[in-house]
């Protein structure tokens, strides 16, 4: 997960405090509800200049930071991903 992505997530994870955001960070348990997940999606799409395909917009994708990052990374231009 790159740093820009983690910074995007942080404002949505008030419940996480100062805890490190890792691929296993469970987004739902840390308070991202269905409306916030839409706003997070917009934030990601605007900042990174990508669009996630409809089929990626499901609960599994938004389950953890890692699963969301996987869907995001798939849309980033090749060579820009720093795991």
């Amino acid at each position, binding site marked *: 997960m790159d740093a820009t992505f983690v910074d995007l997530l942080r404002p949505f994870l008030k419940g996480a405090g100062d805890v490190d955001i890792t691929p296993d960070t469970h987004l739902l348990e840390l308070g991202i509800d269905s*409306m916030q997940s*839409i706003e997070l999606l*917009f934030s990601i799409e*605007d900042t990174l200049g990508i669009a996630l395909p409809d089929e990626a917009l499901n609960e599994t994708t938004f389950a953890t930071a890692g699963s969301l990052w996987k869907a995001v990374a798939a849309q980033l231009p090749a060579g820009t991903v720093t795991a």
Partner: protein
Amino acid sequence: MSPDAQDRTVEGDRPAAGPPASGTPVERAARVAEVTEQHVVRLDRDAAFPVEALAELRRTRLLGLMVPAAFGGLDGSLRDVVDVSEALGRADMSVAMIFAMHCQQVQAVVRYAHEPLRSELLPRIAAGEIYLASVTTETGKGGHLRSAEARLHEDGSRLAIERVAPIVTGGAQADGFLVTMLSPAAESSHQVSLVYAHRSQLEISGTGDWQPMGMRASHSLPLTLTGSVPGHQVVGEHGAFHEIAGNVFGPVAHLGWSAAWLGTAAGALSRVLKLLRSPAGRERFDLRSELLLTRLSRSRQRLDGVHALLRHTLAMVERQESLAAANSQLLLNALKITASEQCHAAVEDLIDAVGLRHGYLKDSPTRLELALRDLRSAALNYSNDRLHLADGRLALRDQGVHFA
């Protein structure tokens, strides 16, 4: 002659331009939809027939979707007709309806035409050379399918046709017509024959203008057809059109139209969602608004309901040998009535959701006002009132209420 009909050649056939396309029916439909999108605004404004989309339907061989492989067709199923009609509806309802109605005609030829008409006609439909129009309306009986007033006359081995029709979709473009007429020996108005007439076998005169509220690109003109055809061009048996109506026209129309309407409303919803999710849309609309979210939900809910009913009815038609049972007829009619109402209502929900600028103005990329005008015809096109009367009688025949 209507202006559009004047420049037709005597032969009247338009060869399919370009090499035939490949791919699944839905992949082919995507190419037709793309061409449709390029012209949709102009065709609505001018109330003009979508000649570009028709050319693409010819080129992709989708005009021959229902033609068996033995005659060179795509050997498609009713499921393919539903899928393609829905896909085309997402771009434009007129094009989707034109396609669905053509498939209905082709299916009648496939199932009921005798030799040598079958072998003459089906390879040419498969090759994209023949777009078929339906002539079932008649002044005085409206769209009532199973009766007729103008009589076919036997003239030696030929059948003489003289027929006035108040609405013939694509009449100026069609290469052939399936016409309902009173059978030569009919003793009642319900002994109806279906007869095929090639354009070159008819004198065709336009007798009016086409300026409707919606469905403007369907270019459904009043026409007068005069001519004669060989006796073998009767489709099915003389006086037995009711069989074709029950087994082909009814089911294919209700499934194909409902798919076209669902596609129209689904396309509208999709364009609205794209707008709302765009950066400009998010500035304009409050996506946390509970009213907006509820309206989006209602619209989607209606379409999921129609989709489920459409697929359930399709499965019944595929499964059952006969559709004569009261509950089968009731389900087919319920699909048409429900789809016509719910697809229209879903677009109204969307208009309320996005308001005047994007719900009511012609230049909005949502095209909601066009979808609403087009979908307004759905309840009138083979009127829901008439279907309710039939359904009331059918309901009385099923005391136990056995769902199909």
